[in-house]
């Protein structure tokens, strides 16, 4: 992608814009990471505190049917009488799902990273994403939000008569997106497992 953009840009005579963009973006990256650091500290801290207080176990119970279906292997290992154990990957996954569902994107990121870290601890492959990690990643990229606050704000600013009249359409489409993504992930993981079987 990098080289293609470079080639197209030079071809169209936008060389100067390219170098300006590179400088601007590398600057933005560091600033972004510093901003993220603050948010991540906050939410990682809150999460740890919530874990100690047993709150995450309660939320885990609500999402248990969904997580059991999506992450069968993890569930077998970690579910303890219907709720995820403290410090388990499922606990982090559940909190990440709740954050995404409620539209708290900034909270979801550190929670998602914690979930990945915990899944990595249980996975033998050091540099390759496990099937469950892929499933989790897909759920994050196609997350269904109950209330799209950014969209509502933008539509209102643009003068929409009823900014939220698209809400049912949004729900239907985002569920379709999630369904298609999950279906593809499921099929592709089956395909890759069959390929591995043949190789062995």
């Amino acid at each position, binding site marked *: 992608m990098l080289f293609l953009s470079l080639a197209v840009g030079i071809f169209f005579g936008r060389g100067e814009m390219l170098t300006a963009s590179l400088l601007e973006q590398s600057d933005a990256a560091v600033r972004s990471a510093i901003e993220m650091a603050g948010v991540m500290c906050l939410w990682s801290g809150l999460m740890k505190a919530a874990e100690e207080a047993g709150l995450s176990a309660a939320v885990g119970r609500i999402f248990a049917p969904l997580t059991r279906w999506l992450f069968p292997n993890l569930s077998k290992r970690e579910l303890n009488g219907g709720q995820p154990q403290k410090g388990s990957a499922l606990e982090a996954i559940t909190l990440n799902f709740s954050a995404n569902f409620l539209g708290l994107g900034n909270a979801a990121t550190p929670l998602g*990273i914690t979930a990945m870290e915990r899944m990595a601890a249980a996975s033998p492959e050091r540099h390759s994403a496990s099937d469950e990690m892929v499933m989790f990643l897909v759920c994050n990229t196609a997350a269904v939000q109950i209330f799209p606050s950014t969209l509502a704000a933008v539509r209102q600013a*643009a003068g929409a008569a009823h900014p939220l009249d698209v809400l049912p359409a949004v729900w239907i489409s985002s569920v379709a997106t999630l369904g298609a993504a999950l279906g593809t992930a499921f099929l592709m993981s089956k395909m890759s497992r069959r390929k591995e079987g043949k190789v062995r």
Partner: protein
Amino acid sequence: MSAFLEGAWEGLLTAAKLIPVLAALLCAVGLLRASGALELLVKVLAPGARLMGIPTETLPLALMRPISGSGSLAMLREVLEMYGPDSLAGRTASVMYCCGDTAFYIIPVYCGAIQISNSRHALPAALAGCLAGTVCSAWIVRIFWG
């Protein structure tokens, strides 16, 4: 309180680990936008989009959605400004904006934080979702308001 501090410290370390990933990512996205490659892609895909019932005004947004969150927000604003929020294009763009999220950011960041270099079928699956979402948005809007 000590649990909070412990967690916060972990959060800080993770954020620091993300700087190289973010640098590469944002630079690549910036290059894509500055190079005009996106406009080229839109021109190429326009006839196909028209066949599938996707308004061509929303194509840049649809293409940008998995690549950049701020970029797609900017494009959404543009479409709403140019065609009005209650037009077919405006509503389609609004629904498209909410389907799927910045796959090219989420996947590398989540994987980069734990040093995973091979995300296997995560990206194709996410993009398949985005495609389904794009087509579904266009059709739903047509059904409700067409």
